[in-house]
């Protein structure tokens, strides 16, 4: 177990280092930040001074180590646009993204699991077939297209919900949240629905397969023999059994929600970190781009690591298989 942990953690660190080199070299070395930072009519002496101040005259690997040292201390440099530490700006935007992602996940569970159960129980009925059609659409339609349609229908045509922005926020334990007021909630509904669509389809498929598998099991036959009502068997016994795998998979997919929030946030101008990075790519605000990419990648590597460790605890075959 210890050997497995050490190997797995080393692997994560190596991957993170490789990613940081890739992002650093890619974003900082291609193109010259000096051209953006100083006036075009600066004298050669001023230019040389700026290069020296930014440490751009040093060899690349030395620059990388300076960057890495800063990054480990949470210092990614100041944003060119906001003139504040990049990390601080991103962390300011983080709650908005997390609120959106959690709401979307909540909706996916709340809508996807019951629909999937219905589709599994009535798989020959038109309701079941239509639910499956909906889930196929949810998988294949591009997120941004659905977002566009939501805006056209609910905010342009019907004028029910606002088309963008975050609305009023209330501090909850020091974190600004928007689901506590109607104004905030009305701004949250459309983007969260949009982001939830893909995961809802996934939840439908998983719980449909789960129900079909569980219906064949002995405990269901036993419950029927005992004379329990159908609604009790399905709503209590089967429900409990399919919740565990479905929620595990959805939990593992949480990182994907944060990555996909980039698209949803851009469409609905939701002030999260996804919109921030797209805006920053547009104006070449390098420190923000680098900080966002590295933070997201770190988060992913961390989620993967935790999942692997949990699995190896639950199922020893995972770590034994790795040693072969």
């Amino acid at each position: 177990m210890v050997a497995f942990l050490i190997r797995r953690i080393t692997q994560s660190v190596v991957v993170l280092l490789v990613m940081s080199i890739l992002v650093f070299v890619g974003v900082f070395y291609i193109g010259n930040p000096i051209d953006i930072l100083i006036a075009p009519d600066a004298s050669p002496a001023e230019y040389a001074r700026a290069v020296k101040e930014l440490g751009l005259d040093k060899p690349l690997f030395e620059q990388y180590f300076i960057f890495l040292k800063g990054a480990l201390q949470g210092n990614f440099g100041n944003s060119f646009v906001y003139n504040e530490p990049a990390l601080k700006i991103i962390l300011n935007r983080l709650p908005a993204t997390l609120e959106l992602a959690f709401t979307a996940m909540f909706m996916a569970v709340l809508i996807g699991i019951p629909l999937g159960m219905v589709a599994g129980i009535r798989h020959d009925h038109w309701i079941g077939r239509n639910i499956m059609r909906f889930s196929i659409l949810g998988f294949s339609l591009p997120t941004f297209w659905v977002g566009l349609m939501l805006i056209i229908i609910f905010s342009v045509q019907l004028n029910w919900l606002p088309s963008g922005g975050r609305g009023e926020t209330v501090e909850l334990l020091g974190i600004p949240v928007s689901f506590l007021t109607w104004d905030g909630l009305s701004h949250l509904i459309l983007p969260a629905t949009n982001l939830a669509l893909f995961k809802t389809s996934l939840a439908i498929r998983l719980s449909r397969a789960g129900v079909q598998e569980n219906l064949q099991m002995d405990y269901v036959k036993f419950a029927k023999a005992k004379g329990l009502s159908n609604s009790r068997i399905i709503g209590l016994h089967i429900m409990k059994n399919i919740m565990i795998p479905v929620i595990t998979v959805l939990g593992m997919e949480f990182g994907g929600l944060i990555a996909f929030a980039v698209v949803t946030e851009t469409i609905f101008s939701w002030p999260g970190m996804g919109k921030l990075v797209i805006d920053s790519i547009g104006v070449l605000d390098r420190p923000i781009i680098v900080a966002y990419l590295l933070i997201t990648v770190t988060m992913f590597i961390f989620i993967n690591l935790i999942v692997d460790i949990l699995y190896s605890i639950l199922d020893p075959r995972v770590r034994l298989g790795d040693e072969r």
Partner: protein
Amino acid sequence: MTHSKKESLFIQAVKEYCESRVAVIGLLCLLVIIILALLAPYISPQNPYDLMSIDIMDSKLSPGSTSYDESVTYYLGTDSQGRDMFSAILYGLRISLGVGVLSTVIALLIGSVIGLWAAYRGGRTDAFIMRAVDLQLSFPAILVALILLAILGKGIDKIILALVMVQWAYYARAIRSNVLVERDKEYVEAVKCLALPQRRIMFGHVLPNCTPELIVISTVKVAGAIALEATLSFLGLGMPITKPSLGLLISNGFKYLQSGYYWISVYPGVALLILIICINLAGDRLRDVLNPRLKR
């Protein structure tokens, strides 16, 4: 004898395909779209990127209106520059389809070679490649593409590269597992007895037996590539302004959505939707009919 049997198998597959009416409609629509896209320069009423043929006087006209000199009818309206949307959509379809198909084909080729190589070398090479594949597949496609395009910048070559990078790992893994199954079959033992060089056995005999079902699966994957390209272009990370794919057309119209000029982004969106649904319908059916493993 063998010839007639082969033909009957083909006809059998066609018949089985045609049992699903939705799939036939999907395939027909897809063929029409492909033909429209290929013939765009000949059938579109206007060349939307020739500045001589567009007129700023005609900007933001609603669908069905005629140009101010009454020479052209804009059935799907015009955008903010006075371009005919119908022509722009035809040209956009061309670019979206081209990028989607090209990137999938390249990814399939690269993935096959790498997957085959991993299975063939085994040991450390295999472990290393498969680790890289697992790692890449653990990140969502959009994040990988975002990192690459943030580093590389805009451009048609860059977006194709990004789409290839996103897709190759899937094919490498699938090919490798197929090769591991095929490697132990009798025909491989037979060609080994002929003392053919290993490379020829792998590329000449094993690979052709591993790829057909993957080629069928890749038709569905084209739809995913097109959707991802549209998403990236919509975010302003993909296509340059000079090569507007459907995603970029939708993005251009998005600004005007609130002001009631819905057609500038809705019609390219509808075209994208029809394209993706048709590919899915046709590809799914094709996979069901041609994949012997699913039949039983």
